[in-house]
């Protein structure tokens, strides 16, 4: 029993939420395989923080300390993890399909000569093997995947797997994996203003489309987002019109998102947009056109002028927040 491994992700000395999601999902897989859950933490002065991972089901932490691991680089992470995996032969390696995990996963799999299932939304175990399911064509269909070699590697879509807290502290083993040459260098980290929430990690998204009419009108969505602690997204039409930055685009050629609540304002619901947000847990559509395809995807439809309804809805949300 060589274990299920998770690759921990951290920033500014603290583990990121995706790490707890992956640990919780990994715990289930380890239980079904009858093996232990091991977290690989590569960091600089992160040792004391590692015990916390026990709370999310981790039995053991393999901790490697070094300046080379902070900030993350593809070379340092992939070579260190591959060296550990070659020594200890884990059955499964899981990580987040965050920007870091998406950068690391393919490289690590290629280094180990194995396959990877990227951005999975479901993990099952059958006949002692991991069987992941992942959306393809931005969620127009779901694919169940067989990974033929060991370790089986999968990355998990953020915001899909529940965080499960348990009792317990993780045992920590310090390791010194081989780190190959690091050919890239992080020269600078530019923080976005106001600690903006990323769309892929946001619990609530307020999104605007062609019906917003211009860039200034997005102010009313920003006001609503502010009250709800939400991120602001946009359809391709709004991005292509230059009203919003590229990073805000939700859809097949933008970000695929899975928030708890997606509020689509003035979005008609082109197939490539629906693909990108269709697996949101709850969808609200505000669009004055009753025939807009977005209404057929929505859990709650409001057929009315968004310029009248959204500001009034923001006021209602303020009242609810004030009473909480």
């Amino acid at each position, binding site marked *: 029993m060589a274990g299920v491994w998770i690759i921990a992700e951290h920033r500014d000395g603290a583990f990121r939420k995706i790490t707890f999601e992956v640990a919780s999902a990994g715990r289930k897989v380890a239980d079904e395989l009858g093996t232990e859950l091991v977290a690989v933490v590569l960091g600089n002065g992160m040792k004391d923080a590692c015990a916390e991972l026990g709370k999310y089901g981790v039995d053991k932490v393999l901790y490697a300390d070094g300046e080379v691991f902070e900030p993350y680089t593809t070379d340092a992470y992939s070579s260190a993890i591959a060296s550990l995996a070659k020594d200890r032969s884990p059955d499964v390696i899981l990580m987040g399909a965050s920007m870091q995990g998406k950068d690391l996963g*393919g490289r690590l799999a*290629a280094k180990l000569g194995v396959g990877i299932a990227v951005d999975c939304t479901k993990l099952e175990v059958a006949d002692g093997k991991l069987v992941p399911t992942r959306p393809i064509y931005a969620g127009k*269909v779901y*694919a*169940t995947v067989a990974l033929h070699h060991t370790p089986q590697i999968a990355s998990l879509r953020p915001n899909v797997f529940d965080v499960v807290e348990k009792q317990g502290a993780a045992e920590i083993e310090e390791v010194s994996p081989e780190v190959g040459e690091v050919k890239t260098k992080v020269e*600078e980290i530019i923080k976005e203003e106001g600690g903006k929430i990323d769309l892929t990690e946001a619990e609530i998204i307020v999104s605007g489309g062609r019906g917003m009419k211009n860039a200034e009108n997005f102010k009313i969505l920003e006001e609503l987002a502010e009250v709800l602690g939400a991120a602001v997204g946009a359809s391709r039409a709004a991005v292509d019109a230059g009203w919003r930055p590229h990073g805000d685009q939700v859809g097949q050629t933008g970000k695929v998102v899975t928030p708890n609540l997606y509020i689509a304002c003035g979005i008609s619901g082109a197939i490539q947009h629906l693909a990108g947000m269709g697996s949101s847990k709850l969808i609200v559509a505000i669009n004055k056109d009753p025939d807009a395809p977005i209404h057929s995807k929505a*859990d709650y439809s*409001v057929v009315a002028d968004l310029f009248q309804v959204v500001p009034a809805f923001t006021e209602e949300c303020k009242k609810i927040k004030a009473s909480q």
Partner: protein
Amino acid sequence: MNVVVCLKQVPDTETVIKIAEDGKTIVTDDIKWVMNPYDEFAVEEGLRIKEAHGGEVTVVSVGPKRVTEALRTALAMGADKAVLVEDESLYWTDPMIFARILAKVVEPMNPDIILFGQRAVDDDCGIVGSAVAELLGLPQLSVVTKLEISDGKVTVHRPVEGQTLVISSSMPVVVTAGKGLNEPRYASLPGIMKAKKKPLDVKTVDELGVELSPTMEITALSPPPERAPGKKIEGETPEELAANLAKALHEEAKVI
């Protein structure tokens, strides 16, 4: 500057995807095939690098004969030559196999920079770029939105959750293009005419000697999970609609 751009042909994003009778592939009859949208950014960046630093842009792809069209599009945009590894069976396959083939084709070209789109919008894997980088022992810079080359060094902007990383790398290097890197040009009419005369070299998997055993296979496809039918929020005035929506989200759905 010797630039190589690897690209894929994919179904247009407006395509309705239908599952085929075997339950594990898709119906390809009525599909309009286009260059993967992220690969357009890669081609455009390749052309801009050539315009600024001189050199040559070679576009490379793998797949059935129809992929020639995507390569001709890149040639019409301004790429100098193309290579297609033609094989009818190589569409619905493991991205690691694509990576092995591309690495084999690209290595003897000795490129200074190899560009990819950050992911193909069909299988959504986004791993071919990093797998090729690994197979060739090169550094990788993924999902970049700005790229500069000076003094034999590449510097990129890479947005991650809530931050943008400025990363530099030695060359040769593999770079994958994110949306926002540039605004891809359209092929001009003279460009399209010229593209017909540009070299397009066709190779086979056999002559490359690539191992085709998969690391991963799709065993079943299923439609997305069904959503329960929605509810229309009622109300006479915008205020009433807003109040009823807030009530539904707060009391019924408990999401705010």
